[in-house]
C-alpha cells in the first residue's frame, strides 16, 4: 500500500472543506471543524486552484508557486490542523483534469496534479481524488482516462500518495445517467490495470454515495464488489433524482421512486469489507440550504451521523 491510510485513526469522521472553510484563516476553520465534532477533512483544493490562460495562451493557476512558496502557504494550514487534531484524509483535485484536443492544457493539468501530490505529501494526506474525463466515444474515453491516469503515476510514486478515481454522472436530455466509473466491473478493471502497470498500489476508489444512488446502483453491493480497492468516501444523500449533496436521513425514505440512500446497507457493507478509511461527508449543499444561524448545528448533525456510522461499522 502506497499511502498512510492505515496509520490514521480508524474511520475518522470528516467533512469537505468547500462551503465553510476560510482559506485565509485556517486556525479558525480547523477549530470550528473540531468544535463541530470532526476528526478529518476532505480538502477541496479544487476551489482555490483556478486555472486560467494568459494572453500568450499559456495556462496558469495557484499551483504555479515554487515549492518554498507552497510550503510557506501550507505551513499554517498544517499547523492548525495538527493543533486541532484534524487529519487531512483526502484532497479533492481540480476538474476537469483532461480536455480533449488541448494538449497544452493537458500537460498543464498533469503539472498541477504533480503539485497537488506534493502538497498532499506535505500535509500527510494519503489520497487525492480525481474525476474522470467523459467523451461520447467509449473507446476514446477509455484511452483518454488511461493516459490521464498513467501520466499521474510518477508523481504518485514520488510522493507516496494514492490517486482515487471517483464514480461520476453525466446528463442526457437533462436526465442524470451513468458515466464512466459507475459500474464496479469497469472500476475494478481500471484500478487493477493501472496498479499492475505502476507495479504498486497507486490507484484506489472514492465512492460517491450520492452519485451511485442517483443512477440506481445498489450501494451496498457496490461496496462489497469493490473490496479493498475502496479507499475513501464522499458521503451524501439525495432524493434519487438530483445530485443534491444533502445530509443523510433528511429525505423521506418512503417516497415512491425517490427516497434516500439505504444507509443500513452502506454500513453493513463497510463493516463486511473491513473499511478503515475516513467517513467523509460531502454535504456542503445540505448545510448551505440551512439559514446561516443553523449551519453550525447542521455541521454537528453531520458529525453525529458519522459517529453513528463508525459505531455501527465497528460494533455491528
Amino acid at each position: 500500500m502506497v499511502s498512510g491510510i492505515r496509520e490514521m485513526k480508524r474511520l475518522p469522521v470528516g467533512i469537505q472543506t468547500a462551503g465553510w472553510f476560510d482559506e485565509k484563516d485556517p486556525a479558525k476553520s480547523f477549530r470550528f471543524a473540531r468544535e463541530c465534532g470532526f476528526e478529518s477533512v476532505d480538502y477541496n483544493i479544487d476551489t482555490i486552484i483556478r486555472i486560467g490562460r494568459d494572453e500568450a495562451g499559456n495556462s496558469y493557476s495557484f499551483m504555479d508557486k515554487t515549492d518554498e512558496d507552497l510550503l510557506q502557504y501550507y505551513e499554517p494550514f498544517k499547523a492548525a490542523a495538527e493543533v486541532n487534531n484534524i487529519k487531512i484524509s483526502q484532497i479533492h483535485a481540480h476538474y476537469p483534469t483532461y480536455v480533449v484536443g488541448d494538449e497544452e492544457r493537458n500537460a498543464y493539468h498533469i503539472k498541477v496534479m504533480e503539485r497537488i501530490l506534493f502538497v498532499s505529501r506535505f500535509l500527510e494526506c494519503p489520497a487525492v481524488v480525481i474525476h474522470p474525463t467523459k467523451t461520447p466515444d467509449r473507446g476514446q474515453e477509455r484511452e483518454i482516462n488511461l493516459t490521464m491516469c498513467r501520466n499521474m503515476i510518477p508523481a504518485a510514486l514520488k510522493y507516496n500518495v494514492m490517486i482515487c478515481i471517483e464514480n461520476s454522472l453525466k446528463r442526457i436530455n437533462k436526465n442524470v445517467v451513468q458515466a464512466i466509473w459507475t459500474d464496479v466491473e469497469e472500476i475494478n478493471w481500471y484500478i487493477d490495470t493501472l496498479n499492475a502497470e505502476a507495479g504498486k498500489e497507486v490507484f484506489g476508489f472514492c465512492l460517491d454515495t450520492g452519485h451511485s444512488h442517483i443512477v440506481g446502483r445498489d450501494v451496498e453491493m457496490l461496496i462489497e464488489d469493490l473490496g479493498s480497492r475502496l479507499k475513501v468516501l464522499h458521503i451524501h444523500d439525495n432524493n434519487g433524482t438530483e445530485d443534491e449533496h444533502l445530509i443523510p436521513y433528511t429525505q423521506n425514505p418512503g417516497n415512491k421512486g425517490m427516497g434516500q440512500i439505504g444507509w443500513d446497507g452502506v454500513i453493513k457493507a463497510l463493516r463486511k469489507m473491513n473499511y478503515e478509511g475516513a467517513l467523509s461527508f460531502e454535504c456542503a449543499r445540505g448545510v448551505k440550504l440551512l439559514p446561516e444561524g443553523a449551519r453550525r448545528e447542521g455541521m454537528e448533525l453531520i458529525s453525529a451521523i458519522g459517529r453513528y456510522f463508525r459505531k455501527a461499522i465497528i460494533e455491528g
Partner: protein
Amino acid sequence: MKEKLLVGIGSKELLPESNLEDNLRMLKECGFESVIYSIKENDLKMQANRHVYFGAFFKAAKNAGIAISQIHFKYDEEIKECNDYIESLHNALHICNTLKCPFLVIDPIQLKDSVQEKEINLKIYRSLTPVAKKYDIKICLINTIKCAGGYHQHAIQGACADAAEAVWYIDTLNVEAGEEIFGFCLDTGCANVTARDMERFIITLGSRLKCVHISDNNGISDDHLMPYTQTLGQVDWQGFIAGLNRIGYEGALTFDVSRSIHTFPEEVRPHAMKVIAAVGKCMRKSIEAES
C-alpha cells in the same frame, strides 16, 4: 408578559411516557421552548383517568420549563357518530384546561359533498363554543389535504385549504359566538403540496392566525420533513416569514416534523432536533427583524 414566537415541536411521538420529565428536559436542552400535544380520539377513550395523566404531563412540562402551546386533536379514521365525536372534543377542551393550554387545534371533517361538509363542521365547532368560552380557550381550524386516489395517491386540497374558506368559517363562528373564540392554525406542509402562496395565505388570515405547524416537503407529498432540507419544491420560507411579520404574528413557531426525526437513527435524533430549534430561532429573528 407573554413570551412571543416560542420555538416548539410536536411532542407526542417524541416523548414516550417513561421518563417524561427527562424527555421534556431533553427538548429544552435541544433549544425548544414549547410543545404541541397531539391527541387522537382513541387516546381519550383509552385514558380512563385522564385528569391525573394530563395533570402529570402539565407538571413535568412546567418543571422542564416547556410551555404547552397547543393541543392538536385528530379524529382517528372515520367519524361514525357525530355526537360521540363532539363528546370527544369536549373532553379535549377539558384536557386543554388541565394543561392550561390556550389553543385547541381541530381538523375540520372532510366530506365529498362540500355543502354537507360545511354544515357538519359548523355544527361541530358551534357545539364547542360554550365550553371554550368558559375555559378561555381558542379553537383553531387547520388547513387540510385529501388523497385524490390512484397509484401515486396525489394530495389535493381538503377542507380549509383555501384561506378565504378558512376566513369564512372563523368569522361565521365568531359572529355567532359574540366574541373571538375561533382562530386558525396554518400547516405549511399541507399549504405547500396544494401550491398555496404562503405569504398571501397568511396575510388573508391576518390576526385570525393563532398557531403554525411548520414542516417542509418536496411539493408533492406531505412528508413532514425538516425545513430547508429540500432542493426541489420546498416551502417558500421567505414568504412565510414575510407574511408572519406583516400580520404581527405572536404565536408559537411549532415544528410538526416527527416523521423526519424518526428517519434518523435514535442516537442522532437530539442533533437533528437541535438543527430544527436553531432554524426556529433563525425564523423568529427574521420575523422580529422585519418588524
